């Protein structure tokens, strides 16, 4: 069964064709990685899915419903959630407050406290809970934002470069975190440059290049694809 379906999605920024007739189908329950060179249009595709940008043409279907015209917050209510490329935590507020803001619309009172505690433990940020989020390390900010995104219990979690700025160990931990979420039934679409992470988690991989779906398959198929290697070396004529 497909959870997300992009149909002939197009987006222009002036003369720049950032998203060029993209077709993409996510299966419910999979971890899908989206890779591609800088400027390929990956983050833009996320913004289209989230309703921050609106496509010039094409449709976005989520769980069978056409959400192309929905406002962002309404898409979140349908079961989408995101961690942005640049960590979007509430910098001036404490770690605890960041999580409270994410959790408060579904939990109240003592239950809310318990949920915050559970999430802090999941993220390994218990000792940082009183810390101002802006003072966290880059990796910790990434985790905090992942935590906020996850706290909505989304059906589809969008992660834009979740391991940027992390050490190999931290990257591996993040991978395990994603796998645990997936085991609980969360579908994941992750943009990632780190191939070790992709190899660790991805069930399927899609390569985006110049706004187009360039290749799709398992990580082994993608790595073996010479055309993909070529675009990463900057020699492609897509």
């Amino acid at each position: 069964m497909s959870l997300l379906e992009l149909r002939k999605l197009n987006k222009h920024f002036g003369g720049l064709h950032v998203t060029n007739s993209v077709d993409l189908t996510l299966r419910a329950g999979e971890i899908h990685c989206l890779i591609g060179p800088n400027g390929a249009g990956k983050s833009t595709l996320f913004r289209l899915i989230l309703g921050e940008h609106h496509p010039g043409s094409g449709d976005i279907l989520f769980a069978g419903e056409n959400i192309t015209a929905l406002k962002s917050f309404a898409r979140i209510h349908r079961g989408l959630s995101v961690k942005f490329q640049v960590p979007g935590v509430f910098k001036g507020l404490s770690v605890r407050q960041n999580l409270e803001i994410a959790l408060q619309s579904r939990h109240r009172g003592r239950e809310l406290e318990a949920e915050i505690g559970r999430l802090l433990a999941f993220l390994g940020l218990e000792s940082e809970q009183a810390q101002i989020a802006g003072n966290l390390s880059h990796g910790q900010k990434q985790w905090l934002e992942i935590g906020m995104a996850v706290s909505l219990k989304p059906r589809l979690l969008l992660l834009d470069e979740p391991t940027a700025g992390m050490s190999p160990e931290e990257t591996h931990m993040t991978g395990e975190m994603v796998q645990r979420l997936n085991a609980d039934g969360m579908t994941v679409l992750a943009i990632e440059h780190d191939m070790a992470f992709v190899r660790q988690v991805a069930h399927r991989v899609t390569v985006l290049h110049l706004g187009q779906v360039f290749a799709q398959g398992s990580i082994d198929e993608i790595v073996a694809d010479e055309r993909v290697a070529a675009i990463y070396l900057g020699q492609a004529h897509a």
Partner: protein
Amino acid sequence: MTGLLAMFRRLEGPQTAGRGPAFWGLFALVLAVALAYPLFSDGYTVGNTVYFFVWVFIALSLCLIWGYGGSLSFGQTAFFGIAGYGYGILTINFGSAYGFTLVALVAAVAIAALFAVLLGYFMFFGRIAGVFLGIVTLAVTLMLERFMAQTAGPEWHIGTARLNGFNGMSAMPPLTIPWPGEPIVLFADVGLYYLVLGLLVFVYLALRILMNSSFGNVIVAIRENPERAEMLGYDIRKYQLITFVIGAALAGLSGVLYTVWGQYITPSSMGMTAAALPLIWVAVGGRSDLTSTVIGTLVVLAAFQALTIYGSQYALVFMGVLLVLTVLIAPNGLVLGVMNWLGRIATRLTQRAG
């Protein structure tokens, strides 16, 4: 019962400075002094204190919209003026019998709030933010001032109330509470003092509760990162609009009380200077904290008045210097800086004692 308890617990929280027995003890002490003060003072001084208190509401409105919500509005004086004129027009037409002045107070504040609903809807649902929000609100304020200033002719009247152009409206009845026998007229001294003090304490505490509630959480989240707030599922436009309307009502309350206090209102109360001053009080005090805003506003107003004796131009220059100093030394506000410093000392002392 538990709901009430939960509400009172929100008097303290991460969004408001000041907590614990030390803070509330001090609060009670200040309140007691404020309550006893008219007994030891003359009518003029008490009336002058009311004048200071009146401005705190507009300062709090700016604290809410700008300090907590992150939207710099120059429009607070517009709501101030609308409500002030509204009160004048209503009471000059319908008089003060049967407690009508109190109805007019509420109605004038409601008119300002209604105006904010329209303006706010256009701005927030049109996704106007940042500098543009400042420009739009300032333009509205100055347009209102210009408009009211040219209403000198006799053709400009609403009912029996002449708008009177640049000279403004005057001689509207003061607040009058119906009372068996003799109605109580709240002139600008002790009577009005207790009413305004009561309103001030109520608004201050209510805003503390509001800002430490889940609503307040969303408001500061929008200030910190509107995109992230929306991507947590919040329709941020609604939250911004509600905050804007509450702020407008508070600014309107300021306007009505000002009109009641001096029994006049002029277009210059919506002018450039009038729009800039609350910004300075709030910035100097500490825009992101209610207590700092109240203290800062009262201190700066008192200093301003003391300096006006030497000429109002000096006082205005002083305001400018104060603002620059604040931005350089304590960008989050001088009073807030001092309060945080005291808070740190208190924590250290209790740690040493414990």
